[in-house]
């Protein structure tokens, strides 16, 4: 039966959808598992798990160089994922899709290969207060190396980016703007189109960290006109250890390689090496073949779910229900109430440490995230050490939200 929430009839049936995720069907600490840590990583559908096994069982071979049948098959499958990613983000050309180990490596690649080449002393790089450490530290490193300045766009008390401040910070010295599409700690959906537009007026390139966006909002890199876009397969029902870096062709071609090794060369002599074309120039060494191949299956799984708007509005129905009920719990404060959010709620409870809450929820079979979520500057902004974070995926249900709320109420009643 299709689950109907707030009169929206979803194309996907949550009940049978859950059956596609073997890991969800289990008891943890004697209780039925409630998995609310989807912003950390989503669970994997059966077809993705099968695709990994299938590769190793039937056509494991190193790609691109072999002439034999298995190598041909593996290469074709690997490159099919690249086309699937191109379609998923609507990239203009398939060569603009580079496989990495994850969002973190994608950002490091741009910081190193683009930043090292084009940043000059006195230039500026702009990030925001909402960033994950992986979109802070690579820029700090390159700014230090190139004696460039790292500037930060502030957010307001709700967790929304302060675009006016951005406009006052940005200038002719700004060479790179790197912000997330969606905040991992607060769930804020950032106005990335506006950021790109403003940055381009000043001639700066824009990198978008889409780690938290890919499973929830539409990504159209051409419409967005961003210069780089990064995301990870594992937050999108795919395997761990696979990431994507999209970059505009001209920019990727202008950049020097980030890592040296096999695959990324045209010709090597001891005197000089000429480099391969994009995307291979940035894919040194044997890649994560099995997981890249399985990632294509994850992308087709997402496609079959239907329109991203439907996915988001379903997850937001969970978000509204949970937000409303959480507000009834005495002493509970939600951190981050931005105008546009994905299904992520960060909260603190007066008199109860987030680690203790996390442990007690785990004892009740509920998986949540606790801590600073790799956003220590953001936590400092709110004057806290960390939060409890719940994050929804398409397979979560209103019933699970009720179980969570009931469990949290029991914890608060017993311990506060």
């Amino acid at each position, binding site marked *: 039966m299709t689950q109907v929430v707030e009169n929206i009839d979803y194309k996907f049936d949550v009940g049978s959808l859950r059956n596609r995720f073997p890991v969800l069907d289990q008891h943890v600490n004697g209780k039925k598992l409630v998995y609310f840590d989807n912003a950390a990583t989503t669970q994997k559908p059966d077809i993705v798990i099968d695709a990994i096994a299938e590769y190793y069982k039937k056509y494991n071979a190193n790609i691109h160089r072999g002439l034999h049948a298995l190598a041909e098959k593996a290469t074709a499958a690997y490159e099919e994922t690249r086309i699937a990613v191109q379609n998923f983000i609507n990239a203009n050309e398939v060569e603009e899709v580079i496989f990495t180990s994850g969002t973190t490596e994608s950002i490091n690649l741009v910081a190193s290969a683009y930043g090292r080449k084009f940043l000059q002393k006195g230039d500026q790089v702009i990030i925001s207060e909402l960033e994950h450490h992986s979109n802070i530290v690579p820029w700090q490193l390159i700014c230090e190396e190139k004696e460039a300045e790292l500037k930060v766009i502030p957010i307001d008390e709700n967790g929304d980016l302060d675009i006016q401040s951005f406009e006052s910070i940005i200038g002719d010295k700004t060479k790179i703007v790197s912000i997330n599409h969606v905040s991992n700690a607060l769930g804020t959906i950032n106005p990335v189109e506006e950021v790109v537009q403003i940055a381009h007026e000043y001639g700066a390139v824009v990198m978008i960290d889409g780690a938290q966006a890919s499973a929830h909002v539409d990504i159209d890199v051409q419409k967005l006109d961003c210069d780089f876009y990064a995301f990870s397969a594992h937050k999108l029902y795919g395997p761990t250890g696979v990431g994507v870096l999209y970059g505009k062709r001209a920019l990727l071609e202008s950049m020097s390689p980030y890592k040296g090794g096999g695959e990324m060369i045209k010709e090597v002599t001891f005197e000089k090496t000429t480099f391969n074309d994009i995307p291979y120039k940035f894919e040194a060494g044997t890649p994560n073949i099995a997981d890249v191949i399985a990632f294509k299956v994850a992308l087709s799984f997402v496609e079959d779910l239907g329109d991203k708007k439907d996915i988001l509005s379903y997850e937001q129905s969970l978000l509204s229900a949970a937000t409303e009920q959480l507000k009834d719990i005495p002493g509970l404060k939600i951190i981050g109430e931005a105008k546009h959010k994905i299904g992520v709620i960060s909260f603190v409870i007066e008199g109860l440490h987030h680690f203790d809450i996390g*442990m007690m929820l785990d004892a009740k079979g509920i998986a949540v995230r606790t801590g600073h979520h790799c956003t220590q500057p953001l936590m400092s902004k709110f004057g806290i050490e960390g939060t409890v974070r719940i994050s929804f995926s398409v397979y979560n249900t209103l019933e699970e939200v009720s179980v969570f709320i009931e469990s949290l109420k029991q914890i608060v009643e017993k311990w506060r």
Partner: protein
Amino acid sequence: MEIKENLPASMTDIQNEIIEEFSFLGDDRESTIFYIMELGQKLPELDGKYKIEENIIKGCQSKVWLTADLDGDRIIFNADSNTDITKGLISLLIKVLSGQRLEDILKADLYFIEKIGMGQIIGSQRSNGLVAMIKQMKLYALAYKSKLS
């Protein structure tokens, strides 16, 4: 053998007592977590003046402050944390090690940790923290020992 009334029981007796207490909780994780948190809440709070950077144990996810005072050839440990679970864990260590002789602390075999299945209860991150706490307590014993000799 001279026995002073205010001296703690032997480490073996205390550890066996803890093992017995935990055995009543069985396999129920929730009761076990709650029990450890209750122990934590019973641990007297450390005065604010001791909650300073130099008393923080490095390697713990939560904040843990530990003090060690010499009393003859024995050490009195006091500790605090910002989370109840961690306070509960320290309270167990204090129960076993505080008031014991330096020599005994140094060679203490804290077998109760494995016997009660602490690794499974608290997970790998906190287990590392627990190891850091024990290490720090033994380091205090070592430091006092070299000071006395």
